[in-house]
């Protein structure tokens, strides 16, 4: 840090860039702690009802397609890698690399949301397994529910958890893609430098958090009771 120019990079309430960075990081982590509890309420309700209606949850899980869940997981892990490399590029002042990695992250995130809404959820709608709105399991879905001796109402409850949890997660993805787009514009204009990249890193923390939520959602929603 030297000269008037780089001095302006540190807001006046901070001693130095290091303290400013630590401060931003702590604030973001506290926000993420509130997010943990936001999703925690849903996970808590899920755990409770899965304990009460194990057959309904197993049958519900078998109505979902594992290949979608696994594909999303891989996409999100890839996007976490591109995000982490993007933050690294910002730290090293590599503008072009940062722009490239942000674009890749946005594409992966947008593809996740697109596939979820256009193919998976629409497919669920066509199969009549959307709770409340279009709930009348038939054919293979109904056969699986009957095979496991599950109550239709309990399976519907599972589907509520599935749609709300993945829906809220998808909403976080959409917000994340919006934030990344904003960062992309700033990065394109060359607003980041090795002394000034806090926004990139904090957005990265959010993005990785959303990835972690999915890491738990995937086995808990798609892989219950085994597929054997």
């Amino acid at each position: 840090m030297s000269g008037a120019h780089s001095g302006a990079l540190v807001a006046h309430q901070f001693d130095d860039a290091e303290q400013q960075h630590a401060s931003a990081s702590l604030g973001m982590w506290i926000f993420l702690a509130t997010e943990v509890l936001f999703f925690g309420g849903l996970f808590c309700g899920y755990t409770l009802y899965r304990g009460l209606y194990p057959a309904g949850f197993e049958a519900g899980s078998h109505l979902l397609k594992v290949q979608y869940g696994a594909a999303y997981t891989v996409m999100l892990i890839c996007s976490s890698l591109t995000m982490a490399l993007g933050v690294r590029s910002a730290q090293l002042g590599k503008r072009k690399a940062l722009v490239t990695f942000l674009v890749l992250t946005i594409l992966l995130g947008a593809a996740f949301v697109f596939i979820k809404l256009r193919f998976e959820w629409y497919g669920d709608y066509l199969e009549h397994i959307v709770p409340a709105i279009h709930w009348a399991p038939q054919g293979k879905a109904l056969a699986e529910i009957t095979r496991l001796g599950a109550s239709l109402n309990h399976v519907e409850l599972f589907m509520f958890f599935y749609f709300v949890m993945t829906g809220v997660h998808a909403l976080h993805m959409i917000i994340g893609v919006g934030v990344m787009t904003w960062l992309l514009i700033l990065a394109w204009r060359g607003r980041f430098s090795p002394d000034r990249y806090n926004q990139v890193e904090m957005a990265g923390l959010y993005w990785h958090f959303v990835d972690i939520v999915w890491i738990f959602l995937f086995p808990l929603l798609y892989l219950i009771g085994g597929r054997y």
Partner: protein
Amino acid sequence: MVGHVLSKKLYVTVFALLIALTALTTGVAYIDLGAYNTVAALAIAVVKASLVVLFFMHLKYTPGMTRIALAAAVGWLVILLALTLADFHTRSWTPVPQSWQASTAPAR
């Protein structure tokens, strides 16, 4: 420069581990382990989340205050789960008193 720059190799290694663990958790679901299927799924998810938190989110290289924020998140999540489940799973232990049953029974 501010913060800690990690090597590209480290990020790619963590990424490879995460992909491998995703394959493992999917594969394990096709093997019948009884109740341990859930245990395995959660254990693998916790390992994956830890990898993301430690390396992608740089927790390993950040000051102690940040770790307190994470500890608070996990701590309160445990309280939320433990107290809620403790409530529901112990309700059947004590019968509802006669007088309450009478007052909550539908009128005839």
